[in-house]
């Protein structure tokens, strides 16, 4: 990586930005224990408040953006971040799909605020939690709640080597088969979102005898309706299927549409 880093005579700059999130995806960067110090040798960390108060002036070669847009201030701030970034990559389900907080999108925010705060009027928030892509152009998106740290390293390496990052596009089922795991859906009748979820986690949940809960979000040609019909035929209620699709990627279009179809089934039933 170092050879490419010095090609332009200086280390590329890396900036990390936080919007509404749990901090877990940026923690993935600090969780690269074996690579962190080497990473800091080949890129200049220019903005990363969780790790350092040092802030270098932009523009930045690569911005990693965590979190979704949920406040009027953040809706303005994301444009400043985009303007200061040569490349902008979203990290994780919040930045890429709106995150768990997008569950507000189908609810009344005032009611939600009243459940948490005695004086909900003092809280300035938007009605919807939206992904970064809804506000500015993004150059790549990392899936996952949280991201896979190997993918974070891959994005930085791709920047240094001036190529596109290589990211998985198949479904979790493919990873699961590759690991030689027994299918939890077929063998044990466990509801599993593996067929509609993009790979990247290494089929973690089936490895623990648990169904995939879709934390990497929908894969390209996900047939969410077919899976929903299968789950219903296996005895799941519409409410259960709706909840299965409405978690950490609730606002990802394919999952949101299926959850909505299930909700309609509930009301018409």
């Amino acid at each position, binding site marked *: 990586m170092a050879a490419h880093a010095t090609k332009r005579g200086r280390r590329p700059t890396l900036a990390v930005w936080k919007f509404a999130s749990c901090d*877990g995806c940026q923690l993935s960067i600090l969780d690269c224990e074996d690579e962190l*110090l080497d990473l*800091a040798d080949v890129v200049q960390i220019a903005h990363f408040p969780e790790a350092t*108060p040092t802030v270098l002036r932009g523009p930045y070669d690569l911005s990693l953006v965590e979190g979704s847009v949920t406040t009027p201030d953040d809706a303005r701030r994301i444009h400043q971040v985009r303007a200061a970034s040569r490349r902008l990559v979203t990290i994780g389900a919040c930045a890429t799909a709106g995150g768990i907080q997008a569950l507000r999108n189908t609810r009344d925010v005032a009611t*939600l605020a009243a459940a948490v705060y005695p004086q909900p009027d003092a809280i300035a928030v938007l009605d919807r939690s939206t992904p970064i892509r809804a506000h500015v152009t993004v150059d790549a998106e990392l899936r996952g709640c949280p991201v896979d740290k190997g993918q974070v390293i891959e994005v930085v390496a791709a920047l240094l080597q001036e190529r596109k990052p290589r990211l998985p596009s198949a479904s979790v089922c493919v990873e699961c088969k590759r690991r030689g795991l027994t299918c939890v859906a077929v063998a044990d009748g466990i509801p599993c979102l593996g067929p509609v979820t993009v790979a990247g986690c290494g089929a973690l949940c089936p490895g*623990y*005898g648990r169904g995939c809960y879709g*934390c990497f979000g929908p894969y390209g040609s996900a047939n969410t309706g077919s899976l929903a019909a299968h789950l219903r035929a296996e005895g799941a209620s519409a409410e259960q299927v709706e909840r299965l699709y409405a978690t950490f990627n609730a606002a990802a279009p394919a999952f949101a549409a299926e959850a909505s179809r299930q909700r309609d089934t509930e009301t018409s039933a």
Partner: protein
Amino acid sequence: MTSTRSIDVPVLARVEGEGALHVRVRDGRVDDVQLSIYEPPRFFEGFLVGRAATETPDITARICGICPVAYQVAAANAVEASQHVDVGEAIRAMRRLLYCGEWIESHALHIYLLHAPDFLGYPDAIALAADHREVVQQGLRLKKIGNMLMEAVGGRAIHPVNPKVGGFYRFPTHDELAELRPLLDQAADDATQTVRLVAGLDIPTLSQPYHFVALDPSNGDYPLEDGRHLLTGTDRGGRQRFPLEEFDTQVTEIQVEHSHALHAHLDGVGSYLVGPLARWALMGDRMTGTAADLAAELDVPDVVTNPFASIVVRAIEVVYAVEEAARIIDGWLTAGPAAHGPASMAVPAGAGIGYGASEAPRGLLVHRYRTDEAGLVAEARIVPPTSQNQAQIEADVRDVVSGSLDLDDSALTHRAEVAIRNYDPCISCATHALTLTIDRG
């Protein structure tokens, strides 16, 4: 003529989440301190309503990527309590092992990457590594062991997939645990070196009249993953012990205008402290092994009232967590698979009210759920450690700034920021943050 001086830190660095600090000094006296948490609220208690109680560990984990296990375990404890299910010793031991991993990871992160640079005169751990690479590498090695423990037991380090209401989807295999065991010997060495390193730091002095609160497990263990009572007081053994179910009557949360986190007040006491200093002061005598030996050798007082010395107690807790993890694995491997029973207990879906708590790395975390007949959440309340500590953080900053007014603005601001970092505040948790402004006018 009035003279006013103000100190502002618009973005607090090396903390988890987003916050700011504003301090106003008027006529040589600190007259206002506001720790504002501007991290956007995410309304977990709101959208938990209508979800299955069995979903609470996975959903609430997403409140905090730094301490997801604390949330998963507290949520599971609460839902199990609501249905009067006791998961038994084996599942509790495995939860404790998972939780040790989170303590090691989170404490090592805070000690080496977030806090130590303050005492060693560096802006961050990367700059520290430029001069003392082996010190930072030692911290990263420890942190990695914590993550490996969470991966082995929980499936992944951030938002583990294996824990659930009732226990685990499966126990880790004999081989998965046996492979980790030798690494814990290296970790014990690194953790011991860490205590010696931080005990030798040039730590500012301060003494605060803390009232401590921590979880008090009935089996006499050092507080960690479970407990049905809270202990409060100012020194070893505490003064008052009450069941978790009384938390709501003992602690009230107050919304303040400058923050998206709610402030917590203990009945008859006011602001109180949770976290390593509280656990140590109230129950430090439950520490065993090297952790206890090191504390004695280094003359760590039974009650540490200097918040700047929290880094020492945190390091002692890392030693304890490493040795506790080794003890649990040794016991588990010796007993053999037949001894453990099922990896989870059945928890019925039904109506009930349950309280659950655990000791997150940065302090007590309490969950309460009320469920309906179908086992769906009807009401949720989550009280994270940083919001409980927020009033105390502001009190510390007030005293630190008052005692250091001779410093110039830059040094004073730094001192105030360190006083906040003493708490390892998790702002993501507290909003469900920190910017410093010192106003000297």
